[in-house]
């Protein structure tokens, strides 16, 4: 059991974050809390993608000096994907918060159940 935990600690923490974010999004009614859940979920997804490219005792994929072993370098593709995803996640978070500002201004509440005129 301890061995399993040690070997898979990054997978467990990444999916822990994803499940916590999903649970917040499913159970909370406050819009700000839903957005926080979205942010936590996004962090978990990013962590998971980086973890997939991890190599035990690996180095960063940068040839900053000669004599680095190519076989020991971690996979650069997931890192490149996550690099852009983080900045876009920030922009999407800002967009979601601006929508929350408008909703609060219009309805006077952030509780999703009290907001009438919902179409769903």
């Amino acid at each position: 059991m301890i061995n399993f935990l040690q070997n898979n600690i990054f997978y467990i923490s990444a999916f822990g974050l994803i499940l916590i974010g999903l649970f917040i999004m499913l159970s909370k009614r406050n819009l700000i809390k839903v957005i926080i859940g979205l942010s936590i979920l996004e962090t978990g997804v990013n962590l998971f993608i980086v973890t997939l490219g991890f190599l035990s005792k690996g180095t960063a994929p940068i040839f900053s000096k000669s004599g680095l072993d190519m076989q020991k370098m971690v996979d650069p593709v997931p890192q490149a994907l996550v690099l852009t995803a983080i900045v876009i996640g920030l922009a999407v978070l800002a967009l979601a918060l601006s929508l929350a500002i408008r909703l609060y201004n219009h309805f006077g509440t952030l509780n999703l159940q009290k907001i009438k005129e919902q179409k769903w």
Partner: protein
Amino acid sequence: MRKFIGIILLFIIGWGIVVSLKEIPFGEQKSKVGKYYIEKGKEETGASNIVTSVVVNYRSFDTLGEVTVLFLAAIGLGAVLATFQRKEKIKVEPSSLILYTGCRFLFPLILLFGSYIFIHGHLTPGGGFQGGAVIASAFVLVYLGCRGKRINETGSKIAESLGGLTFVILGLVGLAVGGQYFLLNFLPKGEFNTLFSAGIIPIIYIAIGFKVGAELSGIIDQLMEES
């Protein structure tokens, strides 16, 4: 009830994840694409940071799309908040002298650090996106510390548009010169591991840095205006 259903759903999802992840070992070489980039990237692009060569050379068309998504999010935020009107203006007290001077002292240093990060994106960890985020953090400092100061909106729009234009025009020039594909690395590669190397990669990363920095500080400006 809602929480109960949520927990049951989470258990189903978690079980699916455990079943599928059992097949993927942790900490081993998995993909052939990453191996190819590490082995050939040095000769093909001339950048010593392989992550940068993936972002700006092999997958630069995707990066153009991602920059566009960022632009769309910034525009959408402006559109959502544009018709918003405050009822009463809150008067802001000016910040104290120490805070004001400290922020004005730190602001150019943070800008310098951000531009260092995106100019050296092909040599060291970092790049346009990270450097842009650092530059936006400098503007956050000014907004919080020196109350009343605003960024120059025209300047930020010009920086943003020039960044996007440089990216697209370099791609089209590559298409015209090489005739093979969009965003071809047509400039000479230069000496490996020096500042002037890797062809168009540093130029594109500088353009991305300006664009991301201008967009994120625009977002901060919009949100600060409303609060």
